[in-house]
């Protein structure tokens, strides 16, 4: 009596579950991106789902390495992935991402030519990444601690701010920051000893190493820090969305610039949905709403930036030719370099203990 009933129950459950899975996977777009970085905004997802009938499923990473690991270990799971242009090469070489048919993206023609033609994203005449937004790793200040924004990066070493300075716990960012502070090219660091010496003298100033936007914003909210390295989009978000006394400073020595782009992983089950999603992400309507409601980096789409008010930070400051001269775009880094940077960074962290 009992056993047949159990069998029926199990079969029914199995049938029901598989029916659910089938129905769900019909038009899902699996997106892999940083958390809180545009692609997971509820209003944006709702608008996209309504327009295309695709359901968006978000997954997140906390570092570029984690993103690559997720792509390597879950082939076929993701349809769209957001990759920093400096990592596009590596992802392509490992056959993690596939070429994109940009003729399907109506907004692609409006992307600024220098970004769309970036050799980091185009390989053998094929497009492996659609430029989305770009921004800076510069400095951000707690407005309560400064009367006027400091002009120079040297403020990080100022004894007046000892114990109230933060820097991201990321070897590559730290070394490139050191390169800028010593007046070097971030993609071709000639004098590593100078970088090491400069960073060594910075360590006693530091309160802690941040790893997420949330860390940074919490510390400003509780007035624990004065200044630190920060991403331009995050500083904008902290001010617009979280109403924190944060403002971005682009020091005269320059800043590290990065370009974020969308790619389609090899084995994507919904390429059409992926193309529609990427096209929506580079659309001016989405971008303006993102900047206004939440705060964002600078769009690679010229029409999207032009749709912002004239005095908007992303149009006025980031579009300023004077700023453009100071910034240095990140180029790809080899594994050997990355490991060497990490060894240096770990040594610095141990020496300060």
């Amino acid at each position, binding site marked *: 009596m009992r056993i047949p009933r159990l069998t029926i129950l199990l079969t029914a459950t199995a049938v029901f579950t598989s029916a659910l899975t089938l129905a769900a996977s019909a038009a899902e777009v699996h997106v892999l991106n940083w958390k809180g970085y545009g692609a997971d905004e509820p209003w944006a997802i709702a608008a996209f789902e309504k327009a295309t009938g695709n359901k968006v499923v978000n997954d997140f990473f*906390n*570092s570029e*390495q*984690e993103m*690559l*690991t997720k792509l*390597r*270990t879950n082939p076929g799971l993701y349809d769209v992935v957001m990759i920093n242009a400096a990592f596009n090469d590596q992802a392509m*070489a*490992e*056959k*993690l991402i596939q070429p994109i048919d940009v003729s399907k993206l109506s907004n692609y023609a409006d992307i600024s030519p220098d970004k769309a033609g970036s050799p980091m994203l185009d390989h053998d005449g094929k497009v492996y990444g659609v430029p989305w937004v770009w921004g800076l790793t510069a400095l951000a200040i707690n407005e309560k601690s400064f009367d006027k924004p400091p002009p120079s990066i040297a403020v990080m070493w100022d004894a007046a701010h000892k114990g109230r300075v933060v820097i991201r*716990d*990321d*070897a590559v960012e730290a070394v490139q920051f050191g390169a800028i502070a010593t007046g070097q090219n971030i993609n071709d660091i000639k004098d590593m000893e100078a970088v090491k010496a400069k960073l060594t003298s910075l*360590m006693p100033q*530091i*309160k*802690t*190493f941040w*790893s997420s936007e949330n860390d940074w914003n*919490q510390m400003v909210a*509780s*007035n*624990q820090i004065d200044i630190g390295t920060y991403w331009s989009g995050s500083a904008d978000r902290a001010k617009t969305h979280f109403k924190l006394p944060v403002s971005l400073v682009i020091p005269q020595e320059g800043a590290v610039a990065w370009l974020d782009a969308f790619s389609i992983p090899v084995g994507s089950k919904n390429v059409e949905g992926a193309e529609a999603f990427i096209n929506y992400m580079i659309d001016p309507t989405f971008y303006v709403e993102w900047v206004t409601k939440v705060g964002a980096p600078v769009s690679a789409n010229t029409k999207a930036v032009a749709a912002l008010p004239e005095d908007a930070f992303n149009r006025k400051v980031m579009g300023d030719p004077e700023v453009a001269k100071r910034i240095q775009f990140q180029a790809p880094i080899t*594994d050997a370099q*990355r*490991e060497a940077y*990490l*060894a240096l960074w*770990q*040594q610095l*962290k*141990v020496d*300060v*203990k």
Partner: protein
Amino acid sequence: MAAQGATATRSGLRSALPLLAPAYLWLTVAIFLPLSAMVFFSFMTELSLSGKPWAFTLGNYAAFFSQSLYLTLLLASLRLGLEVTLWCIVIGYPAAYVLAKVLKGRSREAIFLLVILPFWSNGLVRIFSWAMVLREGGILDTALNAVLPFKINIDLMYSYPAVIIGLVHSYVPYMVLTCYLTLQAIDDSLIEAGRSLGATRLQVLKRIIIPLSMPGLVAGAALIFVPVVGSFMEPRILGGRTGTFYGTVIEDQFVAVFNWPLGAALSFILLAVVLVILAVASPVLRRAA
């Protein structure tokens, strides 16, 4: 007789097999296989998920000895493990004694509940709530300044003491539970006998209670020491500038540079060191018990 005994054992094993099988199957699948894979990785030049060529090497283990960095951090982590274990004994043992020998009935249940309560919340939540308490202008700072007549400035966040506090809080229940079990098993009449034969309270503690509860102390210490030496989350969040330990460096190898072979090698060196420490300590502790 002997043959009969052997049959008995065999049939005993056969009937025990269905009971043992799930646990051993689980251990094989969930622990033995991944761990063997990690041993394998630790001897590879490169983890080639993308089909890059690789070879066997001892280089990952050699890396540990070629740089003073890893040894410094390993010693720092061992010291952290010892300090946290010590504080757990200082705080946990008296609590376990009170629970086992002094409190009875309802009040014991209530206190027990309070001891186990931290286990029911997520570890990360506990650590972040410490962040709110310990920082300047945080709960501890504000509360003390509200009570004390003079102004003090408490900013423990992002320091070594903060790491100790966070870890002791996470691990002290283990010590309370293991010590409680052995303390409860001590026959009260032994203590009464000692007292009636003229032993002072201190002598009773030293000659009867501590020796008889030693197995619980040792088990608790081992349960705490091993994970604390490899801990990375608490130091990273609470330690700030001083929060770099052996565990965080291993985490970096896995998460930041995708160098699993080196990360795995560093983990096995840690495992070996911990096993050696436990092996050396166990005869000493057994003699003490």
